[in-house]
Structures are given as C-alpha cells and as structure tokens.
C-alpha cells in the first residue's frame, strides 16, 4: 500500500476511534487517577430539569473526596452544610467549581443551591451520607427546641392557626426601636432577672418582656422601655455573626421574604401563603424566637416555606433568628 494512503488511513482511525476513546479515558480514568482522591462529578440544573445529578452519594468518614459541580443551564450557587462552612459561590452556566473535603464523622449532609435559579429553586438539594467507622450512617438527631415546643403544645405554624400576619401589636406600628439607644438607657432601668436569661427571652415574645419592664419601671417612657427590650433581644449578637447571618438570609430567604424583610421578594407572590414580613415590628413584637427557630429548621406546613434544618447548624439558625430581630430592633438613627 502507498505510504500516503497508509498514513491517511491511520489518521482516519485516530480521528474516528482513538480520539473519542482517548477523551473518555482521560476524563473518567486518568483524571481521577491523577487526582489521587475519589472525584464525584455532579451536574447542576434547575429542579424542573432534574436538579442535582447525582443527588445522593455515600462516602466514608475520613475519606477525602472531591466534589465537582458543573452548572449546566443557569447560574447556581453551591453550598454544603450543616456546619461545614462550605460555600462555593456562584457557578455560571458551563463553568465548574470543586471542593476537596474530608468528613471527620458520620452523618448526613446536604449540598444545595443558594442562588435563586428557578421557581422550584428550594428543591435543589442533594444528600451526602457519611458512614462512620462502624460503617453505619448515624441517625439524624431530634432538635431539642422543636421537641420542647411540641411538648408545650405550642403551634409552630402560628401563621396558620393564630391569625398569621394579622396577629400584630398595632400600638407598635409607629414606633422605631433602637438597640443602640437601649444600650444607653438599660443601666437606668430595673431589669427583672428573667429578662437577663437568654432561654427565657427565646421562649417569650418582646411584648411580654416590655410588660415586665413596665411593672418594674412605672415612670419610664414607652420609648425607653421599647429601646431597652430591643437592646436585650440583640445584646448577644456579635457583628461578625450578624454579617454571616445576613449573608445566609440574602442567599436563602430574601427571594421570598425580601432583601429587607418586607415580604416583597421576587418570588413572594408565587408561594402558597404570603411570606412573613420580618420588618413588621408589630408582628415580630408578638413572636417568640424559639418558634422562629423551629419554623426555619422544620419548614412551614403547606406554606412553601422549606426546611433548613438539614442545611444550617442550630447555631447558624439562631444567628439567623437574631438577624431577623435586627431588622426591626436596630435603627440606623441611634
């Protein structure tokens, strides 16, 4: 056979056979082998088109894995929780971001989208089941706060059963509390001991605290008492915690509840029940922190409010509650 003909046929075989095979060998054999760790490629598309694929995986505690997220249709934000502090940020369509991590202990973790990507964005989640040294996946722990509320007979879905947004303290409508002013007046007031107890404050609403302060300080002005309550409700929140909670809120809550808590997010009119306006002081004045916490972790039945208990740690959830409080209790005009 002519040498040129032979060369041409070899080239043809290289193009039609060797090249395609080579690409797949490189992608699925060589690249994982070179990386030295197990690589899991995860396709990220809007939930209507399938969501994460795969949407569940199992790893061993102590095993190092690389999770590679490929956004295929729109921009997705990828985070993994609870308690891992992993937020890969936004991934534009056609781009990829990866994270290499080792799970220290067994449990169930969630990877989720935290950039609004579609009407069913909140469904865009996947599960990582981590087997511990005994090769079992530890069962999810009950949340003691939710258990306590259930034992007390408190209706966590008070939006449905207790009048919802219409259950408000109307006399608070024209009042603007300031935790900053409260910090200045608190030393001049007699503060009942229960108000200094964090657990008490979390299980009672600000209106109740104000009533106790009024009894102890009958000559104090209403505005001073309101500011004092604002101070007490926000005194445990550091600025760094508030900043990270603000970021969590922006990414996970603002689409429905609004950037400033006004229930005016772009998806607010798509939910089964109108989202709560956290910037409504009159509403928040009659709400307990532990109920807000439970609602965030468990989700709202029949309201389209998703559960975030599998995404956030209890501490992150409390930080979020504190952030929600700050929307009405900290003023820009001290």
């Amino acid at each position, binding site marked *: 056979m002519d040498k040129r003909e032979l060369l041409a046929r070899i080239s043809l075989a290289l193009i039609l056979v060797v*090249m395609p095979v080579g690409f797949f060998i490189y992608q699925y054999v060589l690249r994982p082998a070179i990386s030295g760790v197990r690589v899991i490629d995860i396709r990220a598309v809007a939930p209507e088109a399938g969501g994460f694929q795969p949407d569940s995986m199992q790893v061993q505690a102590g095993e190092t894995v690389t999770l590679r997220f490929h956004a*295929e249709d729109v921009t997705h934000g990828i985070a993994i929780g609870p308690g891992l502090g992993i937020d890969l940020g936004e991934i534009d369509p056609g781009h990829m971001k990866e994270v290499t991590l080792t799970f220290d202990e067994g449990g169930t973790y969630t990877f989720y989208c935290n950039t609004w990507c579609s009407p069913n964005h909140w469904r865009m989640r996947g599960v990582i089941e981590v087997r511990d040294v005994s090769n079992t996946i530890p069962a999810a722990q009950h949340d003691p706060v939710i258990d306590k509320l259930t034992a007390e007979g408190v209706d966590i879905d008070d939006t449905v059963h207790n009048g919802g947004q219409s259950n408000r303290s109307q006399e608070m409508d024209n009042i603007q509390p300031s935790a900053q002013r409260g910090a200045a007046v608190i030393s001049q007031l007699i503060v009942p001991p229960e108000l200094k107890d964090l657990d008490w404050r979390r299980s009672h609403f600000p209106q109740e605290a104000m009533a106790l302060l009024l009894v102890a300080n009958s000559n104090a002005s209403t505005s001073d008492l309101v500011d004092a309550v604002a101070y007490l409700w926000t005194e445990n929140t550091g600025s760094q915690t508030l900043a990270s909670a603000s970021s969590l809120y922006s990414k996970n809550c603002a689409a429905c509840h609004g950037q400033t808590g006004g229930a005016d997010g772009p998806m607010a009119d798509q939910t089964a029940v109108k989202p709560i306006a956290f910037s409504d002081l009159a509403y928040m004045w009659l709400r307990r922190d532990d109920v807000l916490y439970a609602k965030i972790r468990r989700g709202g039945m029949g309201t389209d409010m998703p559960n975030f208990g599998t995404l956030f740690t209890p501490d992150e959830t409390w930080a979020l509650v504190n952030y929600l409080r700050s929307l009405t209790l900290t003023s820009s005009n001290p």
Partner: protein
Amino acid sequence: MTARLDLLERAPGLRRTLKSRLLQPALQLVMLFFFTLAILTGLFGTAAGSRNFGIVFVWIVWWALLIIVLVPVAGRLWCTVCPIPAPGEWLQRRGIVRRTPGKLRTLHKRWPKQLKNMWLQNFGFLLMASFSAVILTRPQVSGWVLLALMLGAVALGVLYDNRVFCRYVCPVGGFIGLYSMLAPLELRVLDCKTCDEHTAKDCVVGNKQGYGCPWLVYPGKLTRNTYCGLCFECLKTCPKDNITLNLRPVGADLLVAKERRLDEAYKAFIMLGCALAYSAVLLGPWGWIKSWANLDTLPHWLIYAAGLWTLNLVILPGLFGLAAMVSHRLTGEQTSRREAFIAYAYTLVPLGLAAWIAFSLGFVFTNGSYALAVISDPFGWGWNLFGTANSPWTPLGSNLVGLLQTGVLTAGLLFAVQTAYRIARQQTLNHDQAFRAALPVISFLTVLTLGFLWLYLG
C-alpha cells in the same frame, strides 16, 4: 468574455499543489478531526452552549469564517475541505489518497430526475431554519444534527455514485452554491474548443490520474460556480491541462442568463427571508419571538414555523413578484413573466449575502471570545488544556458593529441595484428603458435593505 486572471499560469507551484492527490484528503482529515470533536462535545459535553466546542466552533467560528470570508472571496472553497461527505466518498473509492482502479463501489442507484435540482436543499434548509433556535443553542441537538448529516452523506455515498449528497441534499451546499456566483474565484476551462474536440472526456469518466467529476458536472461546459465543488479532480484528470483557476470580477455568474432556474431563485428568497427572520429572532429585542422559535410551547413554535415558511415561500416571492412584473412590463415583455421573475430574483443574491454577513457580524463580534475558553475545555468538563479555560467573555468592537453592518448592507444594495440594471439590459438593449424597468425591483431591494438597517440600528 470579461477579464480573467489565470492564477495557475502565474503560479505553477499552485497548479502542482492542486494536482496533488494528497492535498484534499489531508485538509479533509484536519476538518474531520474538528467535526468529530464538534459531534462528541455536542453529544457528551456541557449543555451550556457558550462553553461547548460544538456550538462555539460550528455556529460562531466556522459560520463566521464561511459567510464573511470564504464564500465571498473563494466561493465553494469550503466544499473542497468539507468533512461531511469525505468518509462516504472514501468508502466509494475504497481509498483516501490514491486513485483506486475500477468503478466506484456503490449500489449504483439512480438519483430521481425530479430531485436533480435545488428543491430538496431549499426545503432542507427551511426545515433546519425552523429549528435553528434549538439547534444553535442546544449542544446535544446540534451534535445529533451534525451526526445525522454525516451519516446521511455516508448512506447516500453507499447508494449512489459520486457526491449526490453535496449536489442535491446538503442544506449548506445549496446556499454556498448560490452565493459562490459572486466570488472572484472560478474554475473554468481555458479553451472550450479543446474540450469539444476531446472525445474521451476524462474529466467526466476519470482516468489513472483521478476520478470523474464527483459533482456530476461537465467542466467543459461550466459557466457558473454554482455546482462546482472545487475538488480539482478535473485538474488532475485533464490530459490537455485545459483547466485552470481564475480571478475574475465579482458577481460575474449573475449575468449568465441561460442557466437561471426557479429553484435557484427560490433559494435566493429563502436565504434572504431567513436572514430577516434570524435577525429578528436571534438579535432582535422581541423576547416572545425568541421564545416561540425556542419551542417554549408546541403551538407557539408551529405558528412561528408557519410564519417562517410563509414569509420565505409566499410573502417575499409574492411581493418581489409584483415588482418583477412591473419591471417586466417596462421592458416591453420581451421575455416571459416567469423568465423575468427568475432573472430578477438573482438581484437578491448580492443583497442576501450582504444580509447574512451583516447578521453574522452582529454575533461574531459579541460572542467570538467564547472560542478561547472552549479550546482549552471543549467539553466543559473543567479541563484547561491550553490555559485559556477561564478566559472571560469579552464582546469586541461593539461600537463598530453597527457601522460595519451598515457598510456591508449598503455595498450589497449597490451591487444588487447594479445587477438589476444589468439584468434589465439583458431584456432590452435600450439604456433608458432598462433603467426605468429596473426601478420597481430596485425599490423592493431598497425597502428590504432599510428593513435590515432598522433591525440592526433601531
């Protein structure tokens, strides 16, 4: 005969190169590499079109090079290197480079006489155009289309002798053939008498040096570029060295009156109509048209497709027909109405090409930068072969695009106007009468051009 510059006489090295049996297969193998990559990335790569080699390099890079450079300058030179028919042709010949002895190895079926025209290509292009918003943006769909074209070409290569796919089926070949009439490059015989006296007709039947014309053309009677695929087989087989490559005035083929045909006229309407539709759908500000073309719902798409076909097959030809009828009357009706309609339709060739160039400029400047990223990460799998995977999208020369589009459309209009006059002169020898006769068609051309300018400039 108008002025011609014989390139092969001036560059004997070029003649030797074009006569080499290695040249075309070598180039086709290179293109086949990229074509195979486009199919693979389309089928298996990321669904994000801007990060997929198949979408970026076929519908942005290749398309822009084809319509802005190759076709206007060199006519059907893309067909020389096109990889789509190559595997089928090599299968027929049982060889890639060498000239294998004996007949082509096919089932020797006969292509139906009724389909020995451009109609299949016209409807094929319209069909693809109906799905263009989907094909151009979904890598998987694009991959399947490219694969289907290649498998179709191979299948036809098994059934029929020669390049039946290229000549009668390829939706791209149809318009390349039409617009190649404008190109300043042509392959022609040096002396027709030599061909008339040469009874063996090696260029048609082939000999030891090469195959008979795969494009089913008799080079001795070639007067237009439309159906010559520049494979240069005739250059290899002609024992008289009577074939050459010329440089010639732009648009010379438009005035070759005796080969004008209705299928080619409709090709001109379809290309112009699709340029209009693509500009509105893909570059326009009307989101609802985009959504309908993008198959948001089946009923919407059906309305869009019906509109597209009606525009191309009824509205444009209908309106043009009215103008052509008036022009025909003004020339004293020295030809039939049908002949006049067909003749004047060729004025849409320069305007149509200008419209496609203007349309392509609109997106190639904006999206060309995607090419850098996909070179390094063709599948969108997170590779970085050449370090350019993270090159950002960078629109280039945004403030120049409108200017360029205006310039191109104006040039196209002027050429079309000149062509209209010259066609009118072919129907009447009287200059004044020809000028008046051309006016209705010129008005149509002007209104169309203004329409395009309004689409691009607002």
